[in-house]
């Protein structure tokens, strides 16, 4: 995968190489750097979009949570590359003509076509990128983030125009232009097919509909969703899907939620913690509401399913997929231990349900660290709770910090890293 991406990057350099005009003057070098950086940035934009285009085989191979993590990493560098492209273009113009950075930047408008659209597109990209930065992301609602992110599709199109009409690699080089357009249209096609058409086709078949809303704890709610074509439903325990509820206040965004049962008879259940935004508003969804669904995603269950004994660690809403997995593994005759971490007994949603599962041993670890005076997830405590912990295949699902804590403890206890699997709940 990574090799493929690097090979593509080298191909981009190959496009640039013959058309590059190079002399040792600072302005020429700045332009050469700007053009190359711009092209690589533009190529990474396509990679960025492809990473989250929900391409099925890609999804199965890597898993959406990891794809999204890559998307974040590549996104950061793409943002910097776009900034570098703008800076170096401006710098070169500044060196040649003078007039300060602003004047030089505006001067570019006279030289290259489609600079206005490019500027608007870049501004949107930078805005969306910045709002995704950890610090700012936490301050905004999922809805706002979602929509600034969707706008980047428009931004990408806007910046694409100036690449084709002003990029010296493409102006007057029909073949290069064709390659570049193929890259962009191919990417767009993937998005249209797998992010728009596939969910709609699936909706037309399944006619997903909310059948019940069940409060599970003071902060968690379950939503039961039924498909009209159960035999076509491929969702499994431990996976998650993107749900778009066709009701006011829910219509405009799709949310990722984990399946918290072993889907059967066309019934899917999601168990959602109220985090103050959409997840809380789910309580008010009425039975009968139609749902457009993307997915299922997540290969949690598929990984290492042959292990004889299993440890499942759940934190917060992580209990959803863990509960489904517990039942699935128990049915397969595996020895299953579920460690359920919560800060208060009132937060133990689905507790009785998991406790009642045959052949599943449930270990609740309840209480805030400050009140307990210790961390129940530290190696010693974990080992005491699950004596044979070192021999178990472990699946962790919950908040990022908890996953890292448990992973660290397990490694301290001598569990090899390949036997530890995790899935983050939040990927936005």
């Amino acid at each position: 995968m990574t090799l493929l991406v690097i090979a593509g990057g080298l191909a981009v350099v190959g496009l640039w190489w013959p058309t590059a005009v190079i002399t040792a003057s600072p302005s020429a070098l700045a332009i050469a750097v700007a053009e190359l950086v711009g092209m690589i940035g533009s190529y990474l934009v396509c990679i960025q979009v492809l990473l989250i285009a929900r391409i099925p085989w890609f999804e199965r191979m890597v898993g959406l949570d990891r794809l999204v993590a890559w998307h974040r990493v590549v996104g950061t560098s793409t943002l910097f590359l776009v900034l570098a492209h703008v800076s170096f273009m401006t710098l070169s113009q500044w060196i040649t003509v003078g007039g300060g950075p602003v004047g030089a930047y505006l001067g570019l408008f006279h030289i290259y076509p489609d600079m206005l659209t490019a500027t608007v597109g870049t501004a949107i990209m930078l805005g969306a990128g910045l709002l995704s930065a950890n610090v700012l992301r936490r301050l905004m609602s999922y809805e706002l983030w979602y929509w600034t992110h969707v706008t980047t599709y428009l931004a990408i199109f806007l910046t694409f125009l100036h690449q084709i009409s002003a990029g010296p690699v493409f102006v007057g080089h029909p073949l290069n232009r064709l390659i570049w357009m193929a890259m962009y249209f191919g990417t767009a096609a993937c998005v249209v097919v797998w992010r728009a058409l596939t969910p709609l086709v699936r909706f037309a078949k399944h006619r997903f509909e909310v059948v019940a809303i069940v409060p599970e704890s003071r902060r968690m709610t379950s939503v039961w969703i039924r498909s009209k074509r159960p035999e076509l439903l491929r969702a499994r325990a431990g996976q998650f899907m993107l749900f778009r509820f066709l009701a006011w206040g829910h219509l405009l965004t799709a949310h990722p939620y984990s399946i918290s049962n072993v889907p059967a008879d066309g019934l899917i259940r999601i168990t959602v913690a109220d985090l103050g935004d959409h997840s809380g508003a789910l309580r008010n969804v009425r039975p009968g509401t139609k749902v457009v669904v993307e997915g299922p995603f997540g290969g949690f269950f598929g990984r290492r399913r042959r292990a004889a004994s299993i440890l499942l660690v759940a934190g917060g809403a992580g209990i959803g997929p863990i509960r489904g997995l517990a039942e699935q593994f128990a049915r397969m005759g595996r020895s299953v231990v579920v460690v359920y971490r919560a800060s208060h007994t009132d937060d133990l949603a689905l507790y009785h349900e998991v406790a009642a599962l045959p052949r599943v041993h449930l270990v609740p670890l309840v209480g805030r660290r400050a009140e307990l005076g210790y961390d129940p997830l530290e190696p010693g405590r974990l080992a005491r709770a699950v004596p044979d912990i070192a021999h178990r295949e472990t699946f962790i699902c919950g908040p990022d910090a908890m996953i890292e804590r448990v992973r660290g403890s397990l490694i301290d206890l001598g569990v090899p890293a390949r036997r530890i699997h995790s899935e983050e709940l939040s990927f936005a």
Partner: protein
Amino acid sequence: MTRRWQGTTLFTVIMAGVAATVGGRLMTAPAPTAVAAPNLGSTTTTTPAPTSTPTGATTPSAAAHSPAAQAAPAKTTVQGAVEQTVYGPVQVSVTFSGSKITDVTALQTPNQSGRDVMIASYAVPQLRQEVLASQSAHVDSVSGATYTSGGYLQSVQSAIDAHH
């Protein structure tokens, strides 16, 4: 912890790669042809041909599509038409000795950006030599300077047409 800096690290690696690539490209680039290209004129050069200024800083000529021929018995200089290209106007003047092309001077070339100036500075001498060598405007355009080449050669052609 480490993940936070992965994006920045990737960017740094890419920038290092870009710097290396541009450096490599600079190393392998053919040295730009000297501006003072040798005069191919084997015929009599009674008066020194006007030295070409490839930077194109010359004042634009008002004579757009009516090439003005300067009458002289053996040596004639004809201004080519102003050709508009994507990057700006290109115009040349062609000096004939009888029907032989003895010199081509770029009167204006694209100069809106550093890149334009740079392209012109390396493309114009090459184009001039090609035209002098082939005695026509039917020569290959300089790679990386397709538009400037196109405008230049058309302007040359218009001067040849006007001369005949």
